[in-house]
């Protein structure tokens, strides 16, 4: 809501608080100052054109005589549309416009003193000028005082507040409502009757006699077919209206509210809305078909051409104003282009109504169509002031839009249940806020806010919520009002008293914490990505008929409608960006949801580049599958003694078919790791191998949060023995190790494959493998006893794999 300080001062006169006081006070009473438009000023004056003549020797210039009320001046201008009698903006010589200081100039023996200005040259926003003014000179209403500084005259030399009005305070979407708050906050005596005076919107107002019937109009009346959605509908006929531009006093108020002028009728309706909150609508009566107006639900689906040039389809959930043939307005939202007021309009139907807020907000939301009217109706307008506003409007229009106006009123009214009374106890106030208030304080705040109450309760007040306060439903709403005006600054920190009890760390928090510690220790950087995935990228990994893919109905970008089924997409994207910045050695992880068959929490990580960069004492080593395997198995899985097995993965969309393993815990696959498929890397434009792991966290949570029991440490010495042998190259090393472990039984602590060789000097069908074993037998054994065990191991290996021991 825009509030011009100049306008406010014009109303409150000497009592008006300063700009600084208001800037501080508005947020303290709940109105955030979103912006303050700084004042503008320049030596620009209002002048009247007295005479204009073409300059014969030129085609595009004319010579005009202008008057500032005291003297006349001569200017040469190219604006042919200049009207004699019209009021324009004039900058005399010496004024700086757009960085250029004007001087008197000689145009073929005609002296031009300064220049006439367009809206751009006085830095006006193009939303506050008429369409005509946008194309040519800035023409002000003919009754604008001349010889005055334009910026002072139109209150532009004062700051303007842009206030954020809370959603539940539609009464403050109006000058009048905010005046109530300001005068209450600053203790200014300014009763409602003064505040609501029509003279604040049109000082020259003089009451005219309104006739009770309109000649030559065969309008029969009003039918409201849906009283639930339209409880009150007031109509009035205005005949013989003269459509013109608005007078000066209306125009400067429009500019104060930052509203574009249209014509006197529409401008009057707008000014009323901005001052009194109540939206109004005007229809060109002669363009309506038939002899009455209906308020009804659309004959669904009904199409509607609105003022904004768009066509909307209306359903039975909406409400329309219609003539006998077609809708002429979406009730409370927007009128139609074929019933709007035009220059030729003679007779008007004026609407002043109360529509059910729910209906308007539903329609406005569904059609994505928000207007000044709909945003007020949707929050709830003051149904108590409709008659008053109607009367003011008819008076204003009569006064502004011509002399021979007659009016006739039509009323549809159903009873609106007033909100129930609210009993507030002062004890409740201090229970909720933690601070105390006296009955006197409470009463005086409510009085200032014009909230009626009775002092009939022993420990409190009985409040009768007024019709303009749609936000007052129960005692806490009153408590908030009292707190607002006693001051939120009185809320001082205190400590709640409660029984302390042990609250164990939640398993998922502990799991996340342990995993983050582990990944940090392993040199991983934690990434955070959004959860959206590009359709094209998802299609690379999952066919579109994959069950359980989750799509957003209204994505920000049309090509990015999926919730990510696999965070590899985001991690590859991050890898690519970092590699392009020469950060080629990456270890990244993220803990986040995968969206496939619901949401599942995963630990995903990605490594690429060298395990360590080249230094003066180290050769670089490029990450490979076994490095990834080491991270995978040694970190979470083995660290927390999670029993797992692996098998070659069949997820060939993500992984290289030769280098990927599924991890199986308790018979279900909980994740996969391995080399990322070269095709996927190619798609992302990554030209170095990348290894990726994904693992569901919920199935392993129990292993991370349990604690094990101590196993006694053997006092006996550990024994090391090496064995090297030739074996068929196709026999997996894992099987050999397994056989060794099975043969040695409990006493084997560790096995390390410390050499593996295929090639020269060895049969091409064989490989040489060397394994170091660490035993602990629980007691010291002689060399002979150990040799017996070694012999058993060699024998088993020989029996199963036909190995050949190397000396």
């Amino acid at each position, binding site marked *: 809501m825009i509030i011009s300080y100049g306008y406010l001062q014009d109303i409150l006169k000497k009592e008006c608080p300063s700009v600084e006081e208001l800037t501080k006070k508005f*947020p*303290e009473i*709940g109105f*955030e100052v979103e912006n303050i438009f700084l004042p503008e000023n320049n030596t620009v004056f209002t002048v009247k054109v007295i005479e204009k003549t073409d300059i014969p020797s030129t085609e595009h210039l004319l010579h005009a005589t202008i008057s500032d009320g005291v003297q006349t001046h001569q200017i040469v201008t190219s604006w042919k549309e200049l009207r004699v009698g019209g009021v324009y903006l004039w900058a005399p010589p010496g004024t700086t416009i757009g960085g250029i200081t004007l001087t008197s100039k000689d145009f073929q023996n005609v002296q031009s003193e300064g220049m006439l200005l367009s809206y751009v040259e006085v830095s006006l926003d193009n939303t506050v000028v008429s369409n005509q003014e946008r194309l040519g000179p800035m023409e002000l209403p003919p009754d604008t005082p001349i010889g005055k500084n334009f910026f002072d005259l139109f209150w532009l030399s004062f700051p303007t507040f842009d206030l954020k009005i*809370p*959603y*539940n305070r539609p009464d403050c979407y109006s000058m009048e409502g905010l005046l109530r708050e300001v005068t209450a906050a600053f203790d200014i005596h300014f009763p409602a009757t003064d505040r609501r005076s029509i003279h604040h919107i049109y000082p020259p107002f003089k009451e005219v006699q309104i006739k009770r019937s309109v000649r030559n109009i065969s309008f029969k009346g009003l039918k409201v077919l849906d009283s639930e959605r339209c409880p009150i509908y007031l109509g009035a006929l205005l005949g013989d209206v003269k459509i013109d531009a608005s007078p000066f006093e209306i125009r400067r108020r429009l500019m104060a509210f930052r509203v574009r002028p249209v014509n006197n009728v529409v401008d009057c309706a707008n000014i009323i809305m901005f001052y009194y909150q109540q939206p109004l609508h005007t229809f060109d009566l002669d363009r309506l078909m038939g002899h009455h107006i209906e308020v009804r639900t659309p004959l669904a689906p009904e199409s509607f051409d609105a003022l904004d040039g768009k066509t909307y389809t209306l359903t039975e959930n909406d409400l329309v104003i219609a003539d006998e043939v077609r809708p002429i307005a979406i009730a409370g939202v927007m009128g139609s282009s074929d019933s709007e007021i035009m220059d030729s309009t003679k007779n008007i139907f004026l609407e002043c109504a109360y529509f059910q807020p*729910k209906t308007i*907000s*539903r329609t406005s*939301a569904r059609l994505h169509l928000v207007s000044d009217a709909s945003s007020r109706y949707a929050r709830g307008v003051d149904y108590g002031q409709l008659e008053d506003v109607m009367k003011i409007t008819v008076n204003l229009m009569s006064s502004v839009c011509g002399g021979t106006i007659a009016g006739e009123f039509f009323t549809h009214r159903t009873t609106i249940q007033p909100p129930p009374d609210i009993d507030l106890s002062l004890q409740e106030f201090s*229970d*909720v806020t*933690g601070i105390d208030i006296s009955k006197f304080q409470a009463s005086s705040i409510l009085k200032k806010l014009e909230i009626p109450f009775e002092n009939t309760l022993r420990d409190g007040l009985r409040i009768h919520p007024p019709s303009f306060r749609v936000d007052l439903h*129960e005692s806490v709403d009153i*408590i908030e009002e009292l*707190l*607002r005006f006693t001051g*939120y*600054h009185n*809320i*001082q*920190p*205190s*400590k*709640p008293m*409660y029984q*302390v009890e042990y*609250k164990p760390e939640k398993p998922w*928090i502990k799991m996340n914490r342990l995993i983050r510690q582990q990944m*940090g*220790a392993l*040199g*991983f*950087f*934690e*990434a955070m990505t*959004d*959860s*959206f995935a590009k359709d094209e990228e998802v299609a690379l990994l999952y066919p579109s008929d994959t069950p359980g893919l*989750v*799509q*957003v*109905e*209204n*994505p*920000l970008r049309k090509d990015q409608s999926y*919730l990510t089924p696999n965070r590899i997409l985001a991690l590859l994207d*991050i890898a690519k*960006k*970092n590699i392009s910045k020469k*950060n080629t*050695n990456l*270890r990244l992880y993220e803990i*986040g949801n995968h969206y496939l068959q619901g949401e599942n929490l995963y630990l995903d990580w990605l490594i690429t580049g060298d395990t360590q*960069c080249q*230094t*003066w*004492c*180290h050769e670089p080593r490029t990450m490979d599958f076994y490095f990834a395997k080491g991270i995978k198995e040694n970190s979470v899985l083995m660290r927390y003694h999670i029993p797992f097995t692996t098998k070659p993965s069949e997820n060939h969309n993500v992984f290289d078919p030769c280098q990927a393993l599924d991890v199986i815990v308790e018979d279900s696959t909980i994740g996969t790791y391995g080399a990322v498929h070269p095709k996927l890397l190619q798609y992302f434009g990554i030209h170095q191998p990348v290894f990726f792991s994904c693992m569901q966290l919920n199935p392993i949570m129990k292993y991370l949060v349990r604690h094990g029991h101590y196993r006694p440490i053997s006092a006996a010495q550990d024994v090391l023995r090496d064995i090297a042998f030739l074996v068929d190259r196709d026999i997996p090393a894992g099987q050999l190790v397994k056989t060794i472990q099975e043969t040695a039984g409990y006493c084997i602590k560790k096995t390390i494959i410390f050499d593996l060789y295929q090639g020269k000097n060895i049969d091409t069908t064989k490989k040489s493998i060397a394994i170091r074993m660490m035993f602990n037998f629980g007691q010291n054994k002689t060399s002979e006893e150990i040799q017996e065990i070694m012999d058993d191991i060699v024998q088993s290996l020989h029996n199963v794999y036909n190995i050949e021991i190397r000396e």
Partner: protein
Amino acid sequence: MSEEGKPKIIEECKAKFEKRIQKATTAEDIEKLRIKYLGRKGEIRSLFGHIQEIPPEKRGEFGSHINELKTYMEQKIQSVSDQLENFSLDATTEKPYCDLTLPGVPFVMGHQHPISQIIDDLLDIFRSMNFDVVSGYEIEDTFHNFDALNIHQWHPSRNPQDTFYVDPEHILRTQTSAVQIRAMENGTLPLRIVSMGRCYRRDASDATHYPVFHQIEGLVIDKNVNFCDLSGILTEMMTGVFGTRVEVRFLPSYFPFVEPGAETFISCPFCGGKGCNVCGKAGEIELGGSGMVHPQVLRNVNIDPSIYRGFAFGWGIERIAMMKYQIDDIRLFYDNNIDFLEQF
């Protein structure tokens, strides 16, 4: 017998030892000396051999003199040996040249994302204040995200322009308050909980908006809590986050789920309220909404508002992190540039 009453033989042995130990300059010399005097066939042992020559009544005294000498020698050898060792450790000049300016092995240390660091801090702070931590789903139904929080069906925030819909009844949660509704439905009273997590709003990304953000929500439901208590909890929380005492200030604001509701500010932890670049000279920082839980929200989850009251707050973690680390663009959190991440 000497003047001190010690046998001459012992005195001579001691004198010789003194002479020799003065000449000892290497560890080797000391070791030889130790063997000569204290070894199995050493001088001390041989002194004991002389005991036969001493009258029986003086043998005890003789023996104790030898033991005294033995102890003296042991200490002397140890002390000279220590001196020599220190001298040789100090004699670095004679060792091969070692360029100490060469860099060490560049171990890669991991870094936790700044957002999750703040989350950890907050978890610590709230556990220390005896709060429970609850979690929920990111795909939430409209009842828990909106209706139960008094956000009626046609409220603008439910508009598909502001909220991501998965289907007409399910959305990507716009706040973690939905978790709290579930906690109130299922939990036993009184309730002191916080929830944290990813939330979504349909904002195009710019320096201050991103479609994904993290939120921390706190909720206390008890018979005897008030607005001042909320102020107390928030003061402790933000003092914990910034590590310096801050003051909390409220301004009235409207949220459908709290009444009275407030916009919450803290005094700028960097300038103490004097005004600096971080707070934009305001001396305070706006953090988000808070207030007393609306009685209708309690009724929505079958809690009797005439018995129980509550307070709640919900703030963006990114905003807290941006203030704490003085980051001016929210998108940096989601770019995951290593040069950014390694700063935390």
